C-alpha cells in the first residue's frame, strides 16, 4: 500500500532523488561511535538539533497559554506552571532545553574547532554555524524576559543598557528592542515576544537549512 502511494507520487514528481539527497548516504567509520567510542563527540551537532526540535514543539504549546502583556504575562505563566495539566513539564522542558541547547551547541563548536573541520571547503558552513550560535543567544536573551518576573525584568534592563553602550547606534538598538527610549515595559515585552517567537525562529530556520544543505553537499569532514 505504502509502496503503491510512493510509486504513484514518484511517477509524477520524481521524488527519489530528493529522498536520496536527504537520507541515502554513507556514514564514514570515523564518526560512528559504534566503531570508535571517542566518536561520540560527533553526536553534539545532532543533539543540538534534537533539543532545538523540542524547543520548537514545547514553545508552540507554551504559546497556547502565554499572554504577552504586562498585566497577564506573569499570571499566565504562574497559571501554566501551577494549574495546567503537565504545564510544569512543558515549561520545564523549554526552560532546561534553553540551557541544554547552549551547552550542546558549545560542545559542537568545540568539536568542529578542534578537528579543524572549518577549513576549506567548509568555511561558509562555519560562518553559518557561528551565526546560528548568535541567534540562539538572542533567543535565550529574549526568552528570559517573557515570564515577566523580577529576574527577567532586571536582567533585561542590564542587557539593554549594554546594548545601548554600543557606539553611535547604541540608542537606536535600545529603542528598537525596548520600544521606548527610557521605559522597559509593555512595549518591551511585546517586542521581545515578537522577536523570540517570529523574527529569530525565522532566521534560525533559514540558517539551519543552509547549515544542513551544506553538510549534505560537502559531507562530513574526513578523519584527522
Amino acid at each position, binding site marked *: 500500500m505504502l509502496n503503491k502511494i510512493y510509486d504513484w507520487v514518484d511517477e509524477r514528481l520524481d521524488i527519489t532523488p530528493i529522498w536520496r539527497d536527504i537520507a541515502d*548516504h*554513507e556514514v564514514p*567509520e570515523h564518526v560512528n561511535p559504534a566503531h570508535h567510542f571517542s566518536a561520540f563527540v560527533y553526536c553534539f551537532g545532532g543533539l543540538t538539533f*534534537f533539543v532545538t526540535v523540542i524547543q520548537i514543539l514545547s514553545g508552540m504549546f507554551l504559546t497556547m497559554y502565554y499572554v504577552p502583556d504586562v498585566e497577564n504575562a506573569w499570571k499566565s505563566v504562574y497559571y501554566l506552571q501551577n494549574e495546567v495539566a503537565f504545564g510544569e513539564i512543558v515549561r520545564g522542558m523549554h526552560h532546561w532545553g*534553553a540551557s541544554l541547547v547552549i551547552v550542546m551547541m558549545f560542545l559542537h563548536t568545540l568539536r568542529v574547532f*578542534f578537528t579543524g573541520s572549518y577549513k576549506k571547503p567548509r568555511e561558509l558552513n562555519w560562518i553559518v554555524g557561528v*551565526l546560528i550560535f548568535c541567534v540562539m543567544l538572542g533567543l535565550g536573551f529574549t526568552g528570559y524576559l517573557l515570564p515577566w518576573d523580577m529576574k*527577567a525584568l*532586571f536582567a533585561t534592563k542590564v542587557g539593554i543598557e549594554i546594548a545601548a553602550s554600543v557606539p553611535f547606534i547604541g540608542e537606536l538598538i535600545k529603542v528598537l528592542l525596548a520600544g521606548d527610549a527610557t521605559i522597559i515595559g509593555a512595549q518591551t515585552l511585546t517586542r521581545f515576544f515578537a522577536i523570540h517567537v517570529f523574527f529569530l525562529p525565522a532566521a534560525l530556520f533559514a540558517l539551519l537549512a543552509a547549515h544542513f544543505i551544506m553538510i549534505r553537499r560537502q559531507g562530513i569532514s574526513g578523519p584527522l
Partner: protein
Amino acid sequence: MHRGKGMKFVGDSRVKANNRMVNMPKDYSEYPGKTEAFWPDFLLKEWMVGAVFLIGYLLLTVAHPSPLEGPADPTNASYIPLPDWYFLFLYQLLKYTYASGPYNIVGAIIIPGLTIGALLLMPFLDKGPERRPSKRPLPTAFMLLALASMIYLTWESVVNHDWEAAAKQGEIKEEVDIEIDETAEGYLIFTGEQGKSCIACHGADMQGGGAAPALVGNELTAEEVAEVIKNGRGAMPAGQFAGTDEELQILAEFIASLKAEE
C-alpha cells in the same frame, strides 16, 4: 562523478543512480573503512543516543521545576539583577576596573566583539592545511585561553553572588487580602501624628515597601508587635513611635489583629 567542478566530497550523495537499486545504499566495499548506511542503520543508533539524552533531560525537568520569581516590579530599586547562567561570564567581566565605568566600552563591546569576530572569521585567520590541534598551536592556544577565561569568569561570578539574598528578593509574595477597618482606633493612631514614622516606611495601606515588610498578614502576637515597635527589628530603628504607652498598646493589638485567614 562528472558534474560540478570536479570537487570530491566525503560521503557524497550526488551519485548517479546507474546500476543502483532505488533506496539501496552503495555497497560498503566501495568506501574505505566500515561505513554504514545513514538510513536506517545509523539513524537508529543516533536515536539511541538521543533517547539516553532525553531520559537525562526529562529527569532534570522533573527534579528541578523551572523557577518563577514574583511578578516584575519596576519600582523595586533594591533588586540585584543576574542574567541567565550562560551570560554570567560577560556579567562578571563588566565588574572589573578596566572593563567598567569609563572603560565600559572595553568590557561591553570591544572584548566580546573581538571574540565573536575572531570566531566568525576563524577559517580566514587559520588558513593552513593542518587540521590537528597540535599542528596549529596558535588557534588551539587562543581557544583554550578563551575557554579558561569563560570558565574562570563564570566561576568567579557564581561564588561572588549572594544566592540566599537572590532567592529571597525574588520570592513570590502571597497576596494578603485583608480588609483594614479604617475607623478602628488603632488605625487612627497609625495614620495620626504619633504614627508618622510608621507610615513613612510601611505605607498608609500597611503593605510595606522597598525598605519595610507589610504589616498586614504578619504572624506576631500583640506583645511581640509592641516589642518590635519599642525596640526595633532588623532595619527598623527603636523608638520610632511618638505616642503614649496606652496608644502603643492599642496600636500593637490592632496590628496583631491583621492576620491572614487560615
